[in-house]
């Protein structure tokens, strides 16, 4: 209990005075405090009075204590704060702040005036959200009693994505701290001292050269206009703000889209986002407008006439698709799902395939291929990982294997960094980059071919040295002995030799795992390049079980909705909710729900479909994304339907092209890598005549006169999903219901399946559209980060 402004209040142990005040609705002006950052005490704006304490302690760094008597506001404090702020403003362009015509002026200067140098708020891109300006207004600053110095620093505009004008900087350090404390990057720092102090980089390097990831966290944290997003800084107040989910990777960050003139102009991370808590990455933060507003977006349906694709009406195109598709035998048609489709679209696509064309030939061009899903099912009981993002942050040890996490799922590095700050040991198995050496405690540079020996070596060391979670293993895991005997043949020395690493490193990894409590393993698409990806997943799960952490397996799926598309049953052998098509009871349930006779035999997998198309056994192909290996020959196809948002090479052979809405233009849901079902909300209308994918499918079904596709909104589709898919009951993480008893899998080397297929796709893409082609700054970054296209491999 303490007293604050005469009010007696309770407080949480360890809270600062500032937090107690905020919790009780008392405002204390601050500038250097920022949510998620440690108290810094730099701006001196939050000075308060505490009885029996000398001077004016800052509220943000003073811990609350029992019996404290605090005064947060009185004339003396107010004039003190004014003084502090005047000092700050004496080095900051303040003409507009003290101008007595500013009310009138803001009437004419509705949006900021584009200018090279900012000399006052009217010319500042930050004027509509400026914290400094707000605090000045709150304190009623009318004059600055100190001489004004303009620092006259050169504008820094040579880096991609955001501009820096350090003449506006008040040295609050929020950018430096967010980059270091939260992102774990440390791309900027306070340099020099005294009057020369400036936020900068080592030797004045560009951000690009200095390892900046252009996540934009510093821009969002800055209380002034010193840092501003180049693409959106002059747009002024948006007409509308919409909360949606980023569909550019599977982390599932919540974003606030800013719309102006019915176009999405900017996106900011949502501080309330369950997966990202106010963080985003270069794609979500800076790349969306250029991606969705490209001039050559597909705007109307196209049909092939006399060898050329020509514009058509929706009715014509849908009618044609319905007539043509209806002509083929079930075995002659196939569907390829993009892992970027919404749950609603994926659900309806598989329903369409199964109900209208009576085929199970549907699969996804994703890391979540059937073998990966099946081996995840062995581990978790469902085609999903077991881990959550929250668990990652709480882990005592973390292994990242088979992906370039900082580039592929940047916001996850925030959670990894958080765990690391609390003492977790983080290891990377995969490629090595300089910047990784400070994000990870151990970097093991091993090619995918070395994953199997390395992981078996680690397992063997753990099993033989002991120290693992015996209680968990004896109580909850079967087949420990089988695992143990299967490891007999493994020789650590040979393993070390094959992987080109030292034996002590293997030992170190094993020791970390058994001695650091609960852990998480994040595994990415590079495991598909191993001889037997399924085996790799089992090994990883074995390791987790030995550490007593069954809920630590996190798939770094490549598509934003790889998880959801699989959950929805857009797979050749599973109905929605991972119910096998050969299971009579499940099939009956769906036959009743959909009032249709469903195919009973598993369909063709992704590589089989493509082979079939090349050989001519598949005659009609329906493709919803551009994620198709370029080598695939589609010439022998009789009929090709494609959904797309931009022209793609597929269109050379396509007979019908349907223009799809981008994720910023549609409602629906997507499911992240932690199984979190999250809403999409349209920030703008679909471009031209384009339509959400689910609507396109409904249109064709309607033309085929098939019942069960009469939906008028995405939420109606979602309602049906909740009814028929036992996993999904609404938004949020769907419950995995982990098994009571797990099975350890014996280690067995197997040869690569002959039916596997290697293919290349852009590292950052949305439905096959290479982001770096649409966002030129992203291309610069990709070059710098040395990110090549992804080679992926899909097995049947």
């Amino acid at each position, binding site marked *: 209990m303490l007293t604050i402004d005469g009010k007696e209040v309770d407080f949480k142990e360890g809270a600062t005075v500032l937090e107690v005040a905020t919790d009780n609705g008392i405002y204390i002006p601050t500038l250097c405090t920022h949510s998620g950052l440690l108290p810094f005490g730099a701006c001196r704006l939050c000075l308060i009075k505490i009885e029996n304490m000398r001077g004016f302690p800052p509220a943000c760094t003073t811990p609350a204590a029992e019996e404290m008597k605090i005064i947060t506001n009185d004339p003396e404090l107010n004039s003190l704060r004014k003084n502090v702020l005047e000092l700050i403003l004496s080095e900051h362009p303040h003409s507009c702040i003290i101008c007595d015509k500013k009310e009138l002026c803001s009437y004419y200067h509705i949006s900021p005036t584009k200018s090279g140098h900012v000399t006052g708020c009217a010319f500042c891109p930050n004027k509509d959200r400026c914290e400094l300006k707000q605090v000045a207004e709150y304190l009623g600053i009318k004059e600055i009693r100190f001489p004004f110095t303009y620092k006259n620093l050169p504008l820094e505009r040579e880096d991609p994505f955001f501009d820096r004008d350090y003449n506006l900087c008040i040295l609050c350090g929020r950018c430096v701290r967010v980059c*270091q404390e939260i992102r774990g*990057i*440390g*791309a*900027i*720092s*306070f*340099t*020099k*001292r005294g009057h020369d102090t400036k936020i*900068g*980089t*080592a*030797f004045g390097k560009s951000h690009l050269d*200095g*390892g900046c990831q252009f996540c934009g966290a510093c821009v969002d944290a800055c209380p002034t206009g010193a840092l501003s997003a180049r693409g959106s800084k002059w747009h002024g107040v948006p007409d509308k703000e919409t909360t949606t989910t980023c569909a550019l990777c599977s982390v599932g960050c919540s974003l606030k889209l800013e719309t102006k003139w019915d176009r999405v102009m900017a996106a900011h991370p949502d501080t309330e986002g369950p997966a990202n808590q106010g963080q985003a990455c270069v794609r979500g933060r800076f790349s969306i407008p250029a991606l969705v507003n490209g001039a050559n977006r597909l705007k109307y349906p196209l049909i092939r006439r006399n060898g050329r694709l020509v514009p058509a009406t929706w009715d014509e195109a849908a009618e044609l698709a319905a007539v043509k598709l209806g002509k083929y035998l079930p075995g002659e048609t196939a569907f390829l799902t993009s892992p970027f489709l919404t749950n609603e679209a994926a659900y309806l696509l598989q329903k369409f395939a199964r109900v209208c064309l009576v085929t199970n030939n549907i699969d996804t061009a994703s890391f979540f291929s059937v073998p990966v899903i099946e081996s995840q099912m062995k581990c978790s009981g469902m085609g999903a990982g077991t881990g959550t993002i929250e668990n990652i942050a709480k882990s005592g040890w973390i292994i990242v294997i088979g992906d370039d996490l900082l580039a592929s799922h940047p916001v996850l590095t925030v959670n990894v960094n958080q765990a690391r700050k609390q003492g977790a040991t983080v290891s990377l198995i995969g490629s090595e980059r*300089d910047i990784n*050496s*400070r994000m990870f*405690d151990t970097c093991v540079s091993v090619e995918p071919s070395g994953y199997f020996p390395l992981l078996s070596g680690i397992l063997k060391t753990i099993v033989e040295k002991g120290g693992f979670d015996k209680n968990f293993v004896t109580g909850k895991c079967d087949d420990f002995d089988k695992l143990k005997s299967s490891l007999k043949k493994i020789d650590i020395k040979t393993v070390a030799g094959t992987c080109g690493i030292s034996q002590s490193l293997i030992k170190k990894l094993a020791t970390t795992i058994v001695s650091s409590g609960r852990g998480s393993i994040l595994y990415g698409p590079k495991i598909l390049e191993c001889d037997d990806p399924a085996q790799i997943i089992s090994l990883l799960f074995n390791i987790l079980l030995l550490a007593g952490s069954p809920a630590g397996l996190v798939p770094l799926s490549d598509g934003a909705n790889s998880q959801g598309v699989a959950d929805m049953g857009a797979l050749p052998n599973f109905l929605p909710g991972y119910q096998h098509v050969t299971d009579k009871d499940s099939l009956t349930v769906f036959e009743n729900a959909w009032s249709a006779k469903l195919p009973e035999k598993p369909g063709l997998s992704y590589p089989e479909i493509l082979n079939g198309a090349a050989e001519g056994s598949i005659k009609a192909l329906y493709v919803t994304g551009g994620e198709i290996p370029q080598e695939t020959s589609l010439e022998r196809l009789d009929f090709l339907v494609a959904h797309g948002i931009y022209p793609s090479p597929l269109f050379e052979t396509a007979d019908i092209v349907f223009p799809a809405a981008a994720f910023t233009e549609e409602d629906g849901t997507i499911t992240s890598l932690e199984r979190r079902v999250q809403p999409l909300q349209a920030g703008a209308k679909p471009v031209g005549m384009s339509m959400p994918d689910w609507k396109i499918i409904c249109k064709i079904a309607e033309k085929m006169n098939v019942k069960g596709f009469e939906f008028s909104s995405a939420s109606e589709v979602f309602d049906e999903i909740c009814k028929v898919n036992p996993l999904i009951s609404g938004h949020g993480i769907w419950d995995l219901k982990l098994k009571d008893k797990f099975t350890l899998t014996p280690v067995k080397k197997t040869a690569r399946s002959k039916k596997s297929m290697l293919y290349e796709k852009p590292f950052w893409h949305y439905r096959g559209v290479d982001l770096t082609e649409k966002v030129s700054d992203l291309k610069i970054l990709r070059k710098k980060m040395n990110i090549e296209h992804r080679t992926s491999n899909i097995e049947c």
Partner: protein
Amino acid sequence: MKNTIKNIIKPYQDEKGSLIPILQAVQEKTGFISEDAVSAIALELKMSEHEIYGVATFYTQFRYTKPGDHMVKVCLGTACHVRGGEQLLDRTETILNIKPGQTTPDSAFSLERVACMGCCALAPVIVVDNKIYPNVTVPKVEKIISKKE
């Protein structure tokens, strides 16, 4: 460079707050703190190079350019300052065409400003390669420097 730094760091490994002594040791060994040195320290200490640079530039004792063959120090301590040290520095900057802390492109001269050399009676002073030039006037600067060329 990586190996040199490794060796320098070894005695300090696992010591908290050892960055300053490491930087001092690097400067002693190599004469200055180079970009490569900072990157190498960053790798070893698992810190960001920018953080290290930030810490280093907070102290005035470090230099970031390779020292030239001759070190010119202009004193701006109180005594030298009141007797015209500032003008001497100005003149020196013009002649060498560099700022304090920099080295001429031909690596002949480095320029530094110092605060009191402990011989205020001789103010204003310029020190070239540890030789003290007393009671320097602006015209003399050119002579002192040209002698070294």
